[in-house]
């Protein structure tokens, strides 16, 4: 019976993998990835993560102001809109983290010195991080944007840390010739 279940499981998984392989989006590990990773960082740092923006979206004073108007319709509409904004925000943070993950994989696959254990543990870490982001989405969906303001604030802080380390990673991966070009032009300017 166990053998039957195992065979059915492996067979079904293989068929599903083949189907997803047929319809998969092609990913290229090239300069396109580098540009996308840079865009992801810019989006996270410039558009999604600034503390002021997060604080403004989830600021309770807005809710208190709406509550003072004593109109249930307005309050409901306000909460609905804020919830939508919160979900869009968390979703976009998750998407940008996914892009950074793709960037790491797109780079790592070329390295002959790739370490199997490191890659496996990184894969696990990425999966855990993305799962946590997904959980936050569920939490906001179920309990609304004001149910856990500290969670959202901490998520922003987390993603900000991710950004700063990613930026180091991207700087580290910037082609040497680009640095040389910048240095060269500086030297010309000195003369």
């Amino acid at each position, binding site marked *: 019976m166990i053998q039957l279940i195992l*065979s059915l499981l492996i067979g079904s998984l293989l068929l599903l993998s083949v189907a*997803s392989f047929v319809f998969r989006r092609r*990913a290229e590990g090239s300069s396109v990835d580098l540009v996308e990773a840079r865009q992801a960082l810019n989006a996270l740092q410039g558009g999604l993560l600034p503390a002021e923006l997060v604080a403004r979206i989830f600021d309770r004073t807005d809710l208190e102001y709406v509550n003072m108007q004593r109109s249930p319709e307005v309050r409901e509409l306000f909460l609905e809109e804020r919830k939508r904004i919160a979900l869009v925000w968390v979703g976009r943070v998750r998407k940008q983290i996914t892009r950074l993950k793709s960037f790491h994989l797109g780079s790592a696959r070329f390295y002959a010195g*790739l370490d199997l254990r490191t890659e496996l543990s990184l894969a696990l870490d990425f999966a855990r991080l993305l799962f*946590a982001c997904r959980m936050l989405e569920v939490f906001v969906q179920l309990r609304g944007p004001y149910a856990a303001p500290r969670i959202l604030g901490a998520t922003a802080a987390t993603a900000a840390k*991710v950004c700063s*380390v990613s930026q180091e990673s991207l700087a580290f991966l910037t082609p040497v010739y680009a640095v040389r070009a910048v240095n060269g032009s500086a030297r010309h300017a000195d003369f």
Partner: protein
Amino acid sequence: MLSLTIWVLGIALEAMLLYRGVRAGLVSRYPNFYIYASSLFLSDSFLYLTYLWKPTLYDKWSWYTGFLSLFLGCGILLEIFRHVFSEYAGAEKFARVCGFAMLGAVICFAVIYPLVAPSSAVARALYVRLQRDFVAVQAFLLLGLLQIISYYGLSMARNLRGMIVGYGQALGVTLIALALRSYIGPQFQSTWVYVQPLSYLTALVVWLVALWSYRPNPKPKSRIGADGDYDGLASRTREMVSAASSELVKVERL
């Protein structure tokens, strides 16, 4: 009658596949795949003729040719290693380590068992059981390779995609059908007679379309970083992930 028609159709498709392989110069590019395709064509043609003229001989030989085809089917997996992973040293290393362990198991099943089998009757008995185990190991290996290809986003052209899709669906369907046949018993035989050959015909059609002409794999446009920089990349990514994870653990506790 229908099963005989499927059989003849299969031989015709195999012949067409080999013809196109020679015409399009694919045989030299994918030798392992065409060795497998040739073995299928030769064994099917030989078995068809013996089935018509000497059914007793067919009974004896079909098990051995079955073993041979199962073993040579690994050629497709070798082509994946040769062509898909050749441009990606990191992914290739990952796949190689996983693949060696599984290939060891495949070779044990394919070579050692038939050699120690004392007669064709034993080979027949073993074949039914081993076919399922052998297909399961191959399916498991292909499943692992597909996950690595998908995880690292490796790109490939129509030729190799077709090989993988055709072989993958045939392996998956065969594995499920074999498991059900051994569990349900003779009642499943009538379904088995059609399911397995139809899945094989589908694989042949996919291969014929995908391998009609040569399509080289796309070369990666540029390489980021140097070979010795992996540790730096991994440690920076690890810092990023661990920082994010520790913060999220705190978040979950809030």
